[in-house]
Every structure is written in C-alpha cells, then in structure tokens.
C-alpha cells in the first residue's frame, strides 16, 4: 500500500492507504478528523470541503495520494485554540447553521470566498455557494453570516 504524507492543520502526518482511498476517508478514518463530512456521492453537496494549499476543494473528489505533500486545513484547524475563526463566529452570531452537517464545508468554502473576493455582493455570495448544499437554513442566515465575516475577517 502507498504511504501518503501531508501537513494537516499544521501537523505533518503520514499513513499507509490503499490508492483508492479518498482524501475525506483518510481524514475521517485514519486521522479521526470527523468534522469533514460526506453528504453525497456526485461531488455536489460540499459537506467535505477542505483547503488544499489554501484553496477550497472537495475532499470526496480527490484521492488521499493526490494530496501528497500538500498543506490541508480542515474545519478542526480553523479556530485559534478556543477562539473561533471570524467566519465561525459569524455563523454563530447569525444562526447560519441548524443541524450542523453541511456547516464544516460551508464554513471552509465561505472562508475561501472572503479571501478571494472580499467584497462579494449578496448575488456573488449565493453564486459562490453553488457547490455547498444546506437543507436546513434556506441559506438566508448563511449569507448574512458571510456578509458579517466580510467585515471581521
């Protein structure tokens, strides 16, 4: 079995995996980072979004071996100790989550948005979220939370 090595949330990790192991499986099963979720099997729901070298990506749509040598950030790596990342804090402030299942991917995607388009309009925020499906919130408060984080990030 191939050995894969990468940096996850600032820590160098490696593990032996079958080549067919998805990155999300490696994170959840090998590293026990279960904050990254799987909500679909057609790369559409975005519950699995993490950052690879600073860019958001769907960890269900890449192999663990493809992440060899990269810097991966998961939802567990976003907060600074006990202090929530401004995006996490904004989601709490604006009730941008209900069941919490889509939340990790939603937050990771939103962080990437504010980094890349700090002044995105409501329309642009909604378009950016095309790859993240939420069934609980109707997106209303997610959009509000991201608009808030545009000010605080």
């Amino acid at each position, binding site marked *: 079995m191939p050995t894969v090595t990468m940096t996850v949330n600032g820590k160098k990790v490696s593990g032996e995996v*079958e080549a*067919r192991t998805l990155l999300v499986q490696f994170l*959840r099963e090998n590293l*026990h*980072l*279960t*904050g*990254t*979720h*799987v*909500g*679909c*099997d*057609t790369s*559409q*729901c975005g*519950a699995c979004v993490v950052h690879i070298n600073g860019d958001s990506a769907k960890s269900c749509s890449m192999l663990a071996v493809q992440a060899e040598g990269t810097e991966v950030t*998961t*939802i*567990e790596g*976003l*907060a600074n100790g006990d202090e*929530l990342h401004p995006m*996490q804090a904004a*989601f*709490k*402030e604006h*009730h941008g*989550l*209900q*069941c*919490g*299942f*889509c*939340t*990790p991917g939603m*937050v990771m995607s939103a962080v990437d948005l504010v980094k890349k388009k700090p002044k995105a309009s*409501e*329309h642009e*925020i*909604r*378009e950016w*979220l*095309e790859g*993240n*499906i*939420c*069934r*609980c*919130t*109707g*997106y*209303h*408060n*997610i*959009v509000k939370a991201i608009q808030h984080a545009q000010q605080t990030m």
Partner: protein
Amino acid sequence: MPDGGTGIGAAVKRVEDKRFLTGRGNYTDDINRPGQTYAYILRSPHAHAKINRIDTSAAASAPGVAAVFTGADMQVGSLPCGWQIHSKDGSPMHEPGHPPLAQGKVRCVGDQVAVVIADTYAQAKDAAEKIVVDYSPLPAVIDMNKALGGKTLVHDEIGTNLCYDWEIGDAAQTDAAFAKAAHVTKIDIVNNRLVPNAMEPRAAIGEFDQATGEYTLYTTSQNPHVIRLLMGAFVLSIPEHKLRVVAPDVGGGFGSKIYHYAEEAIVTWASSRVRRPIKWTADRSEAFISDAHGRDHITHAELAMDSEGKFLALKVDTKANMGAYLSTFATCVPTYLYATLLAGVYTTPLIYCNVKAIFTNTVPVDAYRGAGRPEATYLIERLVDRAAREMGISQVDIRRRNFIPPDAFPYQTPVALQYDSGNYIATLDAAQKAADVDGFEARRKASAAKGKHRGLGYSTYLEACGIAPSAVVGSLGARAGLYESAEVRVHPTGSVTVFTGSHSHGQGHETTFAQLVSEKLGLPMENIEISHGDTNKVQFGMGTYGSRSLAVGGEAIVKALDKVIAKAKKIAAHIMEASDSDIEFKDGVFTVAGTDKTLPFGQVALTAYVPHNFPHQELEPGLDEKAFYDPLNFTFPGGCHICEVEIDPDTGVVKVERMTAVDDVGRVINPMIVAGQIHGGLAQGIGQALLEGCVYDDDGQLVTGSYMDYTMPRADNLPSFSVGTESTLCQHNSLGVKGCGEVGAIGSPPAVINAVVDALWHLGIRDMTMPASPQVVWAAINSARPAAAAE
C-alpha cells in the same frame, strides 16, 4: 425580554453551535466501535421481481468478509406500521409484510436483498458484486392511476393494490350543498413526490455485548425510544432492558428519520451473529432509493360557492401513494394529517373527502416536513385562487370573505378539528404590508417593460401540529401515545440537567429548552444542560416530528420544572421557618413574602442533597422531578405567505423576487431560532414548487436518483426572505406555543404557484404543475402563445 436575557423571548445564540462549527459534532458515522465491521446492503435493481435463488458462496469467501446474510437467514418480524386506518366499509387497511431482507420477492428498486459484512466497507462492496441473484422480473405498478383494476399486484397475498378506501365528512349533505351552489370551481392537483434529503445520510451501528446479552444501536433517528420499541418488540424480539438506542447528533431529518428502517434491524440482528459491531452508512444514491419519500398525491377537488363567493361545501377525491410497503406512519399522513385540515382558515361548513391509499412498486412514502398538511394547504389555496379568478373577486377579498373571524374561537370544523386560537386577518394584513403589495403593480409594469412577466401569489393557511392528544389519535388508529416526557435533575450545587424525550436534529433544543429552565429557575445558560437521544439516559420519549417539541416536549419540561419549584419552595420554607404559602420564587431567589428573608436556589438544591436541616416527615431528599405531558388538543399555527415571481418567457426561468411570511406560531421562545426554522421551511416549500420532484420511469427506475437529476435548492435559487410573526397564544398549553418547524414548508408552495399562475394568466395559462421547472414553464408559455394570439 431585553437583549442579553436568556429567558422566554430572548434571541439567545445557540449553545450547540460551537461543537458543530469546530468539527466536533458527534454524528453516527463519526462513531467507531472497537472491532467494528462494515455492512454493505445489496439492493434490488428491479422494481418488481421474483427471487429464484441467491448464491452468496463467492462473496462469503471474499477477502475480509465476516458474513453474508439473506432473507433466508434473517427470519424476523415485519417492520411495523404505527397507524391502522379503517376503510369506509369498516374493514381494516391491508397491511402486508415488510421484511428487513427480501423474502422471495422484491417490490421496489432499492429493496434489501442481502447484507455483506466485512472488515472494511470497500471489501464489503467488493464482495457484494460476487453475489449472484437469479431474478425473474415482473411487470411493475408505478402509476397510481393504473394501479387499481390492473392485473399486476405489489402484494399478491392481499389481492389488490388498494391499501384502504377511507372517507371523512358527510357525502350526502355535501352533495346537497353543491346542488344549491351558484358556482362550482374544480381543480385537478398533483402534489409532487419529494425526497427529504437531510444532508446527513442515514447510518446505523449495531453492537452486541456477549457478556450481558445487551444490544446497542446507534442510529440517525428523530426518536430513539420509538425505534427501541418498534424494533425490539415487533421485529427482533429484544426486550427494552436489553436494547439501548442512541441517536447522537443527527444531521437533519425532516421526517425521514422518524421511521424504523430495515438497516437498523439488520445491523442489530447481525451484530449478535458476527459478534462484532457493524456499521452501515448510506451513500447519497442509496439514500434516494431507501429513505422514505414524501407527498405524492393525485387529487380532484370541487368547491361550491354562493353568488358572493362564500364557500358552501368542498368535495375532495385523493389518491395517495404508499409505495411498496407501509412505512411507520405512512397511513396517517393522507388521512388524519391531511383531510382533517381541509377547512383551512375558512368557514366552509361542509366537507367530504375520500382517500384511496395505493401500493406501487416504488420506495415507501411517509411523512416529510409538513406531512399531509402541505398537501391540504396546496389543494385549498390553489382552489381558492382559481375560484377567485372564476368569480371575478380579488385574491384577497375571497379570502377575507371566508376567513374564520378572530372572535369565533374555539372553532369546530366539519372535519373533526377544533381550532383554539388564531387571527388570520392580522397575519394577512401584516404580510401584505411586509410584501409591499401596494407597490406590486408598479413592479409588474417595470418587469413588463423588460419583457418579463411578474406575478403575486397568496397562501393563507393553517396547520395542526403539536402532535398530539393520545386519546384522540388512539381512537383514530394510532398504535402509540403521543405525549412527551421530561426529567429535570437539579444537581447538589444547583446546576441542572434536563432529560427530554424530544430529539434535536437541527432545531436548537439545547438552547430553547435551556431558556425555559433559565426563565423558570433564574439560572444562567451555562448551568443548564439538555440531554437527549439515548434510551439509557432518558426515561422515555416519543421524539421530534410534527412540530411537537416545544408544544409537547417543552410543556413536559415546564411541568417538571413546576414540580421542582413546588418542592424547592417547601424546602425553602422549612429552612427559613416560614409557611409554604408565604414563599415566593423569582429570578432564582426564594423570599418569604413581606420580609427580607431570602434563599438562593443553589442553597435549596444543596439542602435537598445534604438534608441535615430538612422536612423529612414531609419530603424525600433530592431535587429531581419528572413529568409526562399529554396535550389536550393539537396546536394550530397559521399565517400568510406572499410570493412575488418574475418569469423570463424566453427560458421559462421563474425567479422568486420576494418571499414574505407572517406566521402565527404562538408564543416565541427564541425569535432567532424561530426565524431560522421558517427560512428552512420556505426553502423546502419553494423547492417543492419550483425545483424538486421525483421521476420514476415506466419500469420503476428512479430517474432522479442523485443530485445530478434531483434539483436541490441552492443558495442562488432563493432570495433573502422576509419573515415575521403575528401571534395569538395557544389556549391549552401553559407556554402558549404552537410550533414553527413545518409552517414554512406548509404555507409556501401554493403562494409560489399562485404567483406563477398570476404572472402567466394574461397569456391564457390557467394551471401550473409542480415543480414549475424552466422547461415546464417555457412549454406552457410556448403552447399558450398561439392561443393567446388567436384570442
């Protein structure tokens, strides 16, 4: 309640958020048990087939495989149906068996045929490909309209595809009223079949402890005690004290996680055979063919009116799809959760409804957010809209003319329900204002100038929730009570744990319920813990569905809190050497009335557990009280939803420009959470109206079997919403609460479709199906164009 408070009415930020936001939630698939194996379920590719033979030998010897089981191995009880309906002739409904693993026949695509248990999920799936199933495919019944009278039977042993033929109301009197009507409006409605699609796919882990003989099931459930009862008593014959069911964090349910599913029984049963824990997690494609679907009605309805547009009588004929088997609560959805709602907010004096429930070779259909009430609301509000147009009365006037007036409560409908409170004029007025209805004509003109069609649609609706008085539902065929339980355990230092039978899977109970405690006991939020979801911790519970958690579960907590306060007052009276009746309790402090003698709550709690100076003759030590609350009636939230759409005639795209909801949900405990619940419901309602819909082909293959073909509402499909509440209080619970979980999904679909019809009416378009997808709308416009031109 001022900002910064934590009691009733405060928009307290959610207690549960931190763990979800930091990736520390604990969902079923996040749990791993020592020695765990993985199950893959082999499912039927056929909608209907006889199984001649299953050869599992190659799979059983594949790498990593611990066991392979088929229906021949798993001879257990049938997955039960929780509600018995009687047909109009008095006969009980047909209730065919529902085996967890197929017994010789499969009846829908996705039916469970075999289970492979292996060291890894990939190995289980690899091995499953080596199972050889010899099927003889049979013709399938997919279309409800063709299911009755045909030769193909979903269940041969019952000799029909008709589950029941039920009625409510007086047919003769209703017909007599129709005979006298000045005008009759008729409508044919299809309420489209939906897939609930909670974002967390279902999962289950079964575990058997050989030393104690105890089973544990971790499962994605809205009601763990119900699963324990149904699976233990009916399917696997495991007594409750040997079966623990844990529903940890659950990623959304919307009804789909109420039911007892085959996979729960399979992993629990098999765990004692393979002597290792077994995890099963659905992938999304599997969820599409194994989660209970929702809605799926075909209805013809007629409304009789006098010359002023006053409703005289309503006649409804509905076919409801049950799918291939009866899911847990499937049978009550198109009857007692549907036909009893057909009065809506109107004074219609006579109503008759006939419902035929039909088996087809499709996935079982059961309650999905709103369950029966969205179907009723859609029917009434489309019919009222049509009636207004036929009568030349405005959409608003016809509604106002027929509203149950605010002073008419309690109001007895002709279809069994008695509404306790409501003010439909107030919600309509407030919604019209919020939606800037006055500015609509100008906006319509502006759209027309761009070549677009703009429309405005109303829905004034009501629903029955807070499910439900046990005696009432018992007399109607429910095989369960629908009370809720709570235990308030005050700890010696004065902090509190509440054990509730309600289950939170997004609703924020850990916050809202804690607010009740904070209000009643004057405690800060951080001293309160809400515990739910584990049958070994919580005394009992009927769970969360039917917008019942606050009205029933919250009320049970209040009852237990009242008992705590009553006992604490006695303890305080003893310590302060005063009479019980002189003790007042406010903001966490006991006071002897008219004196400056006080005692904080924490001191009383400590005394209860260190009872040195304690009224032992009168009281037991400890401060731990329990209550079961059975509601006296349903609760009746209602309101007005107004939708404004703009349609691009070139593409057929319907854009929701404004969505306004003003709802009466009774007293609001946490306005932030209530608004969030309504947002979510609106998104699902707009989803039903414009985007979502199951398509089966004639062979029974689910065409919309993944997010590639089933249109989920995404952020760019929806506008920001305008939501507000305009509440009257529920008259039969102490909190005055009604429920808010389903109103958004119940009220909104007809508002959206009425808006689409309004936008296109001038083209000669009179009807619109759901989902009003771009193709459907474009085709309607395209075929109307020549007709409109010819007029």
